[in-house]
């Protein structure tokens, strides 16, 4: 019996991972102009939020650092508000709040949604049916009404906003994870693992989780603007961040009262919301196209 010829790794086959693959993703992203614009906006926003203490020219909550409702000038690039606070500093600090809410809320929603989705997708049919019923019930509840109820019970605060956003997003993520898990669990490689004797924790953790987490993170990045506008909206309605903590929503609300005298605070509070929304959306869409072209059809 002659031995089979040894197959050598010619390195020719489809895209080898590692640094080479990363560089390839980067090159693909660079060709996507909107994606690059999105990346730039996101980097600007995250950077200014992290370095807010350094970047902000004045203390955001300090009153009468200049005249009241002043238009933009060299001293105050975005003017001042009705209490004479520097609007640019407030916008930068408001970005930090917005990002914090987004990270905390989405982080909680993502991890809980992932867990529940895996259970619903991999568990028995009756459990899946029951969990779906709960997901859909939560989702059917109008967010603002739900927020009003929670604020009435717990009082307006940053953590209330985070709680509301997290609870209302969990079912969305859980549903995505559940659907993905269900289609994965009938794949041959899962069957092969079971035939080898792998238990449920191993199958979920080692084989299913890495396959659902990527698309989920992209989905979450596209939800960041949603959360930021929700936070701004709740704060605008007085159900979110308490004054004097700056938030884009409270900046808008404060400016709104004086819009006839000075439009600057409203414009200054609105533009970062628009830019951040566009930034995360562009970046998320570009990432989705690069990593998983199929996802476009699935969603």
């Amino acid at each position, binding site marked *: *019996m*002659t031995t089979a*010829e040894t*197959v050598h790794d*010619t390195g*020719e086959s489809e*895209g080898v991972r590692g640094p080479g693959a990363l560089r*390839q993703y980067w*090159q*693909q992203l660079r060709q996507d102009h909107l994606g690059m614009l999105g990346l730039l906006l996101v980097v600007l926003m995250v950077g200014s939020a992290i370095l807010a203490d350094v970047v902000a020219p004045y203390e955001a909550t300090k009153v009468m650092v200049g005249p009241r409702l002043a238009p933009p000038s060299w001293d105050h690039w975005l003017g001042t508000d009705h209490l004479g606070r520097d609007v640019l500093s407030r916008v930068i600090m408001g970005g930090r709040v917005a990002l914090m809410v987004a990270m905390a809320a989405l982080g909680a929603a993502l991890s809980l949604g992932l867990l529940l989705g895996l259970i619903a997708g991999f568990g028995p049919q009756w459990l899946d049916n029951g969990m779906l019923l709960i997901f859909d019930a939560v989702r059917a509840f109008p967010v603002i009404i739900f927020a009003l109820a929670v604020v009435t019970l717990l009082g307006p605060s940053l953590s209330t906003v985070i709680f509301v956003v997290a609870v209302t997003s969990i079912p969305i993520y859980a549903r995505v994870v559940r659907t993905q898990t269900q289609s994965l669990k009938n794949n041959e490689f899962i069957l092969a693992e079971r035939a080898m004797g792998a238990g449920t924790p191993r199958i979920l953790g080692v084989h299913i989780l890495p396959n659902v987490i990527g698309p989920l993170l992209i989905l979450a990045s596209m939800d960041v603007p949603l959360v930021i506008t929700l936070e701004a909206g709740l704060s605008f309605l007085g159900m979110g961040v308490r004054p004097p903590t700056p938030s884009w929503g409270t900046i808008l609300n404060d400016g709104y009262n004086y819009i006839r005298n000075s439009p600057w605070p409203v414009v200054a509070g609105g533009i970062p919301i628009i830019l951040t929304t566009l930034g995360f959306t562009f970046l998320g869409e570009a990432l989705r196209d690069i990593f998983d072209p199929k996802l476009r059809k699935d969603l």
Partner: protein
Amino acid sequence: MTQGDAALLDVNRLSLDFGSPRGRVHALRDVTVSVPKGRIVGVVGESGCGKSTLAFAIIRLLAGNAEVTGGEIVFEGQNLLDLNARQMRALRGQRMSMIFQDPMTALNPIRTIEQQMVDIQYRAPGGQAGKRRHAAEALDRVGIPDPESRLQAYPHQFSGGMRQRICIAMALLVEPALLLADEPTTALDATLEVQIIDLLKDLQRDIGCSVLFVSHHLGTVAELCDDVVVMYAGEVVERGSVRDIFNNPGHPYTQALLQCDPGRIRERTRHLPTIPGNVPNLLGMPRGCIFKDRCPHVFDRCRHERPAHHAIATDGHTASCHLLDQTAEAPA
């Protein structure tokens, strides 16, 4: 191939690239195939050799990242590459039609067979009733029992073999001059496969159309086809009549391919022949002979000069191999 017959389809030196993130993949290079009137031409080769790409290029149903870089596709006297989208649409489903590999997805799942079969006759004159009758006749011809009532059924109510029969009925409804068949029996079981091959043979004889039959299965090609084109890594390496190819293969790849087929090995063996090595990467332009890395007869000339097609016999049997070059001296 047989002389005298005017060719219905002439693919001349067709080259085609696919754009990919890692560069251009040269999927077809200088492919020349001729389909005479009323004959069945088989295109054989292993996965990735470009045989399906060729069929899709002819009917111009390629993905958006494909780009023809050279050559022409002459069908009934006109170059298909010069036609605009509207002219091409007029040809499809009229002068040429296609059947696909997977009969499970080739039919619209939410419309009845009747709706789909009447729809594709939209260009034909005549009323609804006539088109319906025409559809029923076509189903009858491909061996679907009780066609009148089966017209009301949806695709999922048919088995795989029946669905492929329906696809064939639809493709031949317009009596096209050219039928492109992309691995139509691959998804079917052996006993159904022979039924479909016999059906194709009978229908081709009745209608008199030409068929370009793409397959990786040597057995079905030997059984069905008159002429055979062997492809490897995007190039045509050998062409000839079916007997030439199977009884007297000229190219080392064709020889190796035939040797590997366990169906041709009469004696029971525990050690089957294989073709060592891998199919070359088509990202760069390959130098020399495309088969040089796996060829048992490789010599110096193969490494830097691309072989031309040399005649093996006078009847049009040619292969692209330096060994067949009569003008050159034999390698030492």
